[in-house]
């Protein structure tokens, strides 16, 4: 496909991907600062589990999976993600030394449960693969438009509260302070976005976009402070993920799209962290 053919075909997918990836990179930087990486992993796994569980329920009720609209699974995905998040939140009461292990145990438990549900019906295999690995290239134009709109709303909320997020991340990471009710609602938002993204773009792409930019900048950023770090992460998400989709479609159509996107994002973030100073 030529450049213009790709643009025409994915006219809504690219802006959606750019916005959602920028948002996820923003959330990832704050989640990592608050040591919520494993918690967000459990929440994303919860979203995956909820979505698959809803599909199984649809099969039990003898509904045709082709007729089950993808948005119908959203409440189940977010609901189970919320439950997983609540369980993960209980780990706060554990000693700091055991917290990561407890969260890992929760994630592996949710993963196993997802596998058990998938084994419940052969028709669930393809849905599981779609939500686990992601299938961004097959999102329809109508779905992309709706997701684009949702991403704009979320982005505006995050942008308007960017100082509050920064202050809360500082206070949580260094003073162990979970802060005010408003800060708690901000934390919920930071965890809700990955849940919705897992439902729409898949577990792998969500986790990669959340944590690759912030990890790269944390390792290689030479100058600038926390604000600069977050701006760099957002730029990586904004440009790196759509670039990955473009490279996948143009040069490697035979390779898994999400894997090419993740590797492109990894390389893009490395180059941006290592060689660009602003």
């Amino acid at each position, binding site marked *: 496909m030529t450049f213009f053919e790709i643009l025409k075909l994915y006219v809504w997918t690219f802006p959606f991907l750019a916005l959602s990836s920028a948002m996820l990179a923003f959330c990832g930087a704050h989640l990592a*600062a608050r040591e919520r990486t494993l918690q967000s992993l459990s929440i994303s796994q919860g979203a995956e589990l909820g979505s698959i569980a809803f599909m199984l329920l649809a099969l039990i009720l003898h509904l045709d999976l082709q007729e089950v609209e993808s948005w119908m699974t959203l409440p189940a995905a977010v609901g189970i993600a919320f439950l997983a998040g609540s369980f993960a939140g209980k780990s706060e009461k554990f000693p700091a030394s055991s917290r990561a292990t407890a969260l890992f145990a929760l994630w592996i438990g949710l993963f196993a449960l997802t596998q058990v549900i998938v084994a419940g019906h052969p028709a669930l295999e393809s849905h599981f693969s779609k939500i686990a690995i992601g299938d961004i290239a097959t999102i329809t134009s109508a779905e992309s438009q709706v997701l684009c709109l949702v991403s704009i709303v979320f982005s505006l909320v995050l942008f308007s509260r960017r100082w509050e997020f920064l202050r809360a991340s500082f206070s949580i990471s260094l003073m162990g302070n979970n802060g005010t009710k408003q800060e708690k609602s901000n934390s919920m938002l930071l965890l809700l976005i990955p849940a919705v993204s897992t439902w729409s773009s898949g577990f792998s792409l969500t986790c990669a976009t959340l944590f690759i930019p912030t990890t790269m900048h944390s390792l290689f950023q030479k100058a600038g402070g926390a604000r600069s770090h977050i701006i760099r992460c957002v730029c990586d998400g904004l440009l790196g993920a759509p670039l990955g989709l473009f490279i996948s479609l143009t040069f490697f159509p035979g390779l898994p799209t999400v894997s090419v996107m993740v590797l492109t994002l990894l390389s893009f973030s490395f180059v941006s962290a290592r060689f660009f100073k602003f």
Partner: protein
Amino acid sequence: MNSDNSLIFACENLSIVFDERALFEPLTVSVQAGKVTHIVGKNGIGKTSLLRLLGSEDIKFSGSILSKPSPAEIFYLPQLQSLQSHLPFTLEEVAVLIGNGLISKSFIARDMDEISKMFPQFFSEIQRNKVWNKASGGERMRALLAGAMACRSCRVLLLDEPLNHLDVHSILEVQHSLLQYLRNEGKDLSVFIVSHEPLEALSEGLGGRYQALTLANSEVKLRELK
């Protein structure tokens, strides 16, 4: 609650209650505005809880509080729980975030330069852009204090173990910066400091303005320097 302007804190038979038990002997004390009170006592005696009670947090206590500052007048700087952060905060960003709280965003943006100009005793040009993770303990504490001082409505500063994790040189450095501020711009500021370290530089430099409040199971003592 504060009827007398010169009185910043007064209590009668006050003790912190934990597990239905008073942590220290009942405390009856009056602290005048502008005093620097060093709260001392062994671990677990309730020093931090007393400070948090002063900071209007919901802490169980017995006795009565006759006078205390309003929450808007207080700046509470809690103990540092971790010395490293994933985000590379610069010392200037730390001061601005601490100082502004959740006040408007435009204020934060404008004040990036302002805080370091306002408090040269806490900041030098070189330190401003230093990353928190790579700064020394003394530099970190001075950035936190600069932020606390920038809180303009603040009349009372509550510092919980500000000298923890610092070497001897940094302890002196931080005390001297604080002393310089308290002697100049912060003449009316009341300070409560919980610290295991002796605050010799502060006690010598402030004279009668400094007092030590010792909490113990057997006795509670307010000692004022002559």
